[in-house]
């Protein structure tokens, strides 16, 4: 008996092909192909999501660094009021906030909502003193509708955009009352499509987007 015959004895014990073998294989291969495609798509989505998150963060960080360097000059500027505030440590420029400050969850784009809410709040009859006060002081802490403010600064992007929109604004770290006027306290805005709610100094203002502008519709 030669070697091939020897192996042939064993090969004869091999299982016979199952009748539906080709169908099983094709079905499995199709499932594998579909799974691979899903994996590739999921990988692409994950990459896109990572880029979508990373790029704005990097851009925001870069612009914050730029504003830090540009804000250093006005801080030593000739304005008397500015000097006084620097001495007392009462107010600070945007770039002075700690770099590790946590984002409050608001994007800089929500500044329009805050601006409309602050404007409406100041126009309200009982806030005359606050409206006339210059600078308009805003407490740099995330404040709930009721209770104590969180030890968490306002979003850096929001402050920057609000400063651009409202030059009279100054963010302060202490909620000291100056000339009988308390600093404005802002809470986290809830924006849902064309509706928004913003806590401003203990009031929850309701706003709606109308013709591209946010308008307060209740809460005053």
């Amino acid at each position, binding site marked *: 008996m030669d070697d091939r015959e020897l*192996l042939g004895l064993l090969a004869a014990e*091999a299982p016979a092909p199952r009748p539906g073998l080709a169908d099983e294989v094709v079905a499995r291969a199709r499932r594998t192909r579909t799974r691979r495609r899903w994996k590739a798509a999921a990988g692409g989505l994950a990459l896109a999501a990572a880029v979508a998150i990373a790029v704005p963060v990097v851009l925001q960080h870069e612009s914050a660094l730029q504003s830090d360097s540009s804000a250093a000059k006005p801080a030593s500027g000739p304005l008397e009021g500015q000097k006084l505030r620097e001495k007392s440590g009462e107010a600070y420029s945007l770039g002075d906030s700690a770099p590790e400050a946590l984002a409050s969850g608001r994007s800089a784009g929500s500044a329009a909502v805050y601006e409309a809410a602050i404007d409406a709040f100041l126009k309200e009859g009982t806030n005359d003193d606050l409206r006339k006060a210059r600078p308009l002081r805003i407490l740099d802490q995330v404040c709930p509708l009721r209770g104590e403010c969180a030890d968490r600064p306002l979003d850096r992007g929001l402050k920057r955009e609000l400063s651009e929109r409202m030059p009279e604004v100054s963010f302060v770290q202490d909620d000291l009352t100056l000339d009988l006027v308390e600093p404005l306290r802002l809470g986290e805005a809830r924006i849902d499509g064309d509706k928004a709610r913003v806590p401003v100094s203990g009031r929850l203002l309701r706003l709606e987007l109308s013709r591209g502008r946010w308008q307060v519709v209740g809460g005053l």
Partner: protein
Amino acid sequence: MAEEEAFRRFVAERSAALLRLAYLLTADRAGAEDLVQNALVKAYLRWRNIESNPEAYVRRVLVTVAADERRRAHRRHETAMEALPETVDGTDPYAGIDGNVRLRSALASLPSRQRAAVVLRHWVGLEVAEVAELLGCSAGTVRSQTLRGLEKLREAYGLAVEGEARG
């Protein structure tokens, strides 16, 4: 569609031979079926590239996977043993009934690469250089592995014949 038809034809015509080869490579019926099915799935997914010689591709997959002893042992929770599991001195009552039992045991006890060398050289009929290329080793290794493997198989079959004659 034409591709799928060609693939189905290939499976219909060659699956029996592939199962025999897989069984010789694994010495395990269930393992052989799994091995062939996995190899065919891979072949289907690459059919466009391998259509000219699908059998060579499937054979390569079978050999590569079967020769990976550690993976196979892990999957089956088994460990290859040097000694044959049964003897013919009366402790294996089936040895006298089935003359192939010891041959089968001998095949199963061969290290997977030695088994692959024997099967590819003497069952498939590949040249030593082709076997060496498939297994990723030298021609000398193929020769020595084939020699040792065949010795064990012959010895086992001889004992089986002797046992059968006694029984």
